């Protein structure tokens, strides 16, 4: 059955034709981009009749397609001070940083030398000229919950960071995605991160906006973690309020590696966080957690698939949503345990704190288990602020608003506690508190 194309779908196809010649990469990359847009043109934007998009009908939500941010010549127009201001306490973290402005790697704003020679960082646009890189990384592995968003990323990606970490790093790498927010733009970026064996590393991705104009962000990070390595990966999404944020993480975990992902979202009108994790060897441990704080009519969807194809791996997920006004939080978590993956240990929890009558939380855990000797569990809770707890705080002299704030903090803190680096956890708590303060004014 063919469906009439929407205005946004039409515009995306047209825009690709217009900008294709200006997108970076060798011929092989250009061919992949064409394949990707052809695949997109065939299926269009995902909609609610696709099970993985049941709660987020992108075809309906995306009324128009913004002009892609390509060749805007912007590197000289932005200074660090303005970016630091919107980053707030994140700007004070002791990190190496890569700054992308409207999807373009800006060397003048970036500082990666402190990581030393064992960490190689290259703008993705440059890496796309490398035949070997292009061959390996342009088309990301297909993930179960989505094709369209990843295809669009391949078609339109302008830049990003190609990172190779072969020794442990003393400082986190902070990839800062800045939207100037002066015009409505579509920004597509790709990070390809390869972490060697026996390495400890922390990667933070931030999404912020200088202005209030909406962006349509499509950000894909493909990360491979080597054997016995320990990687922390944090994403902070604080985009302009009218934005659409489409994010995909594809995570490949080798034997005995420990991968800890965390996603914190307060921005964008609509955000979709897709996370796909697979294990390449026994003894892998994965923890994917996050918190979303939403108000007005914000909509945030986290859809993750964790696949256990090998035995003796562990997966943990804890997502917490604080929902006010008419906000809607979605959590879909699927754990697949293949027949060979005996002794898998998987636990998942999604919790929402409802601050209003009109907010909504949709939680859909799915366990698909083919092995017979596993421990897997999931849970979901949905609650209002406990009035007894408010009374307990008030009986200690704490005014009602402050008491409610404390209880919301308490709720989020359990998720933030998943972030092992205390400096980063502190900044996340501070950001959560800023959200609460704003909420109360």
């Amino acid at each position: 059955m063919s469906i009439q194309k929407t205005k946004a779908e039409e515009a995306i196809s047209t825009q690709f034709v217009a900008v294709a010649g200006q997108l970076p990469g060798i011929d092989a990359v250009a061919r992949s981009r064409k394949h990707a847009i052809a695949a997109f043109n065939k299926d269009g934007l995902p909609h609610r009749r696709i099970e993985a998009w049941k709660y987020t009908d992108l075809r309906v939500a995306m009324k128009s397609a913004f002009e892609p941010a390509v060749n805007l010549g912007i590197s000289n127009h932005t200074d660090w001070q303005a970016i630091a201001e919107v980053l707030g306490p994140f700007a004070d973290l002791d990190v190496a940083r890569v700054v992308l402005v409207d999807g373009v790697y800006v060397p003048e704003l970036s500082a990666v030398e402190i990581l030393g020679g064992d960490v190689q960082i290259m703008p993705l646009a440059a890496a796309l000229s490398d035949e070997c890189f292009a061959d390996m990384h342009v088309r990301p592995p297909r993930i179960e919950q989505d094709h369209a968003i990843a295809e669009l990323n391949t078609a339109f990606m302008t830049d990003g960071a190609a990172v190779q970490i072969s020794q442990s790093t003393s400082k986190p790498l902070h990839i800062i995605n800045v939207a100037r927010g002066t015009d409505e733009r579509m920004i597509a970026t790709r990070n390809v991160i390869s972490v060697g064996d026996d390495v400890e590393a922390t990667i933070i991705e931030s999404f912020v906006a200088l202005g209030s104009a909406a962006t349509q962000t499509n950000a894909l990070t493909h990360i491979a973690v080597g054997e016995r390595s320990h990687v922390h990966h944090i994403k902070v999404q604080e985009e302009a309020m009218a934005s659409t944020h489409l994010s995909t993480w594809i995570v490949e975990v080798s034997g005995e590696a420990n991968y800890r992902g965390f996603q914190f979202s307060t921005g964008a009108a609509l955000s979709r966080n897709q996370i796909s994790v697979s294990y390449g060897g026994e003894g892998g441990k994965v923890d994917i957690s996050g918190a979303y704080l939403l108000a007005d009519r914000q909509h945030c969807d986290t859809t993750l698939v964790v696949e256990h194809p090998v035995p003796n791996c562990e997966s943990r997920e804890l997502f917490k949503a604080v929902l006010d006004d008419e906000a809607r939080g979605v959590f879909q978590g699927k754990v697949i345990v293949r027949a060979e993956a005996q002794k898998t240990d998987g636990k998942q929890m999604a919790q929402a704190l409802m601050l209003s009558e009109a907010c909504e939380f949709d939680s859909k855990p799915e366990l698909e288990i083919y092995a017979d000797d596993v421990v897997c569990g999931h849970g979901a809770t949905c609650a209002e602020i406990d009035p007894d707890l408010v009374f307990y705080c008030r009986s200690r002299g704490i005014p009602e608003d402050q008491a409610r704030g404390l209880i919301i903090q308490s709720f989020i803190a359990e998720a933030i506690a998943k972030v092992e680096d205390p400096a980063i956890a502190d900044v996340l708590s501070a950001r959560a508190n800023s959200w609460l303060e704003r909420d109360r004014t």
Partner: protein
Amino acid sequence: MLEIKNLQVRLEDEDKTILSGLTLTVPKGEVHAIMGPNGAGKSTLAYVLAGRAGYQVTDGEVLWNGENILDMEPEERAAAGVFLAFQYPMEIPGVAGLTFLRTATNAVRKGRGQSELTTPEFMRVVKQKAADLKIDIAMLKRPVNVGFSGGEKKRSEILQMAMLEPTLCVLDETDSGLDIDALRVVSDGVNALRSPDRAMLVITHYQRLLNHIVPDKVHVLAGGRIQATGGKELALELEKSGYASYTGEAA
């Protein structure tokens, strides 16, 4: 002075009267015990004094130092000096005990028109008071009451009480869930707070707490009102004969 006059209270959600004309006076500097059978209205009295929602006062008044506290919000009562040590202290995951104590202490100080304590000032006070109650400061770095034993929770309540420096202390079954040693530590903490400026209302089922916190008066609460008042020997008598005669009277 605490003056409770003809207090009548019913539950908001169901048509059930809990207190039916309770009258009681506790002068400053005195400790009064309230004993009574299950369902007598002891916890209701404690909650109504602290201002918990869900109770409707249909008649009577509660004056603390001449002020009608029933018109006040719970936090205003705290600032006015009222403190309720909960029978079941609440857990607050993710909020460190110290953070909670400092927030509460400064909120109450603000409510009383006092300056807020700086972090070093607060730490100095809290360390001293925690040591008095044999509370390890490490325990206060953990989330409020989460994973605490019964004894730890009650000590944590008494520490809050010590920090907030209330003038009217209401202790709701503070002895429940305590072993002998914990009972002694908690009682010592309460006794240390006895002062000529402070009135205390100790609610309990059992006489044994009153061996440690020796009351000036004992009241028997049954059927929603005070049925008898006496000295500490009344508690011993109740321990022997039970509440049957009072509940009979109430019915």
